């Protein structure tokens, strides 16, 4: 007995707030979905971006339902008490490079050298430590230097203030081409199975809105499809997300996205979770058992259902 004249048969669309932590090409999928209006009608999606410290609080409070970010941040917040779990990912690894200069030619050479990081505990710092520990160094063998922001990190590398950094592939490659004596030390995409770009969901909300969650994932999948089929439109969205305007750079960013994303959304794999847990243990988090990791992965059926639609 609804007498609402505006109701078109069904109930009003479920509102979903989405937050992304950096305007990186890896997250342009959400921009494409938004720009091209690819979400089903039963949900009403609004997208905001900003700083990752703000994102942590937003996601854990349930103020946003969907949160685009990288491992192991989701795991960390979930451990802090937030009802948060991975919903899906569209990469098989981290799309970042470890680069060095000032005579550093391998990860082992970082012994006694300085490593630039944004802040301790942030992803770029955690994965840098992981690679170095994997190469046989301990955290006492090199000096971590907090630079506060990614621009400062890149700038410090360009200026030679630090000997090694981990940066997203686009920025890293630009530095490699412009800084004399800089070399690639490690490509995470090839070496570390990891959630580089994924979406996590507030699980309290999920319990009450399973349909809406599936619809959201359906929209993301549509965006992935759209991006491979409509390169020009996709580039426009990438440009809006990242601010890149130069045509060549935009081509490169698009290509980079296509090269490092999967064809379809995927549930986060056990392998990826284990990598995250290992890194968190590196950081001294004794709660980061493999069992805890499993609890962060949600039921893969959501992704499957979304793909079926």
């Amino acid at each position, binding site marked *: 007995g609804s007498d609402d004249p505006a109701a078109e048969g069904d109930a009003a669309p479920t509102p979903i*707030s989405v*937050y992304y932590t*950096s*305007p*990186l090409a890896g997250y342009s999928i959400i921009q494409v979905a938004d720009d091209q209006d690819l979400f089903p009608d039963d949900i009403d999606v*609004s997208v*905001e*971006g*900003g*700083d990752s*410290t*703000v994102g*942590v*609080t*937003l996601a854990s*409070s349930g*103020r*946003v339902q969907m949160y685009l970010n990288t491992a192991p941040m989701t795991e960390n917040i979930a451990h802090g008490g937030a009802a948060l779990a991975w919903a899906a990912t569209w990469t098989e690894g981290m799309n970042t490079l470890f680069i060095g200069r000032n005579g550093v030619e391998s990860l082992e050479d970082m012994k006694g050298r300085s490593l630039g990081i944004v802040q301790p505990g942030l992803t770029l710092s955690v994965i840098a430590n992981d690679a170095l520990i994997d190469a046989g160094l301990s955290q006492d063998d090199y000096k971590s230097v907090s630079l506060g*922001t*990614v*621009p400062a990190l*890149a*700038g410090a590398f*360009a*200026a030679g203030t630090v000997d090694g950094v981990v940066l997203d592939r*686009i*920025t890293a490659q*630009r*530095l490699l081409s*412009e*800084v004399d004596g800089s070399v690639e030390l490690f490509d995470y995409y090839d070496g570390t199975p990891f959630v580089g770009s994924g979406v996590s969901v507030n699980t309290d909300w999920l319990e009450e809105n399973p349909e809406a969650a599936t619809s959201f994932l359906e929209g993301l999948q549509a965006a992935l499809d759209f991006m491979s089929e409509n390169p020009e439109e996709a580039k426009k969205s990438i*440009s809006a997300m*990242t*601010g*890149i*305007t*130069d045509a060549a750079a935009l081509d490169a960013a698009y290509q980079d996205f296509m090269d490092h994303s999967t064809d379809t959304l995927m549930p986060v794999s056990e392998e990826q979770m284990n990598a995250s847990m290992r890194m968190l243990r590196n950081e001294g988090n004794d709660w980061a058992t493999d069992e805890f990791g499993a609890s962060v992965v949600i039921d893969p059926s959501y992704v499957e259902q979304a793909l079926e639609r």
Partner: protein
Amino acid sequence: MSAVTIETPPATAGPAPGRRRRTRKPASRSALSTRSRLLLGGAGLVGVIALWEIASRLGWVDPLVASSPSGVATSAVDLIENGTLLPAMGSTLRLFLIGFGISLGAGLIIGTLCGWYQRIDAVLDPWISILYASPRIAFLPLIAVWFGPGFLGQLVVVILIAVFPIIINVASGVRAIDRDHLRMAQSFGATNRDVLLKIALPGAIPAVASGIKQGMMQGLLGVVVAEYFLGNTGIGGLIFQAGLMLRTGEALLGAVIFAAAALALSSALRKVESKLDRWRTA
């Protein structure tokens, strides 16, 4: 001192009108002409900008890190051509106008209440001092949660940064009512309301103007912070994006735009103030 003898200095020889005995140069404070000021100031600006360009061309500074004046100019041209800059400026302007407008209204009202009603002041003053003194950057996550990371959250950030200088200045202006004027009004049997509206508020205009000025400057800063940390929109977002991608020219362009806006606003305000306050130029 009954035997004071006057030390009469010997007269100078003949008619040498320009020469005096003293060797110490007495104080003189003649104003520099507006023209010389502009010339000197302009020369300084142009000089430093030229030096920066040269340093960048000769590779003394890394253009990747420090860009160059021509790099900033190129960024401006690019961003205008691809239609990014103007919409960004529009969205920033909108945030600033609404945020500052609300701060102004709230600041005037709360400031007047605090300046006039001592009980309200007693209750609010500790909070105003605490909030004004606390590093509001630490509250960004809370603001994002309560008001969302979108326009509303940004607005709250701007208001939280811009409103306090206005409140504080307005309150102290209203509080500092001229005693002579107050007695005069009392002698005519004016009511409290008369005194507030006809004496305290008009008399507070200079303090209000300085509050508005500080609020404006802080509001601009608030806009950058809000756009930088929440929502990534407008010029603040542009600075953020550009920084992430090592497009230093664009980041500096954003800073230059804000600085220009701040300078333009403060000089406009000075003009308005001197109009409003003409009776004071006695």
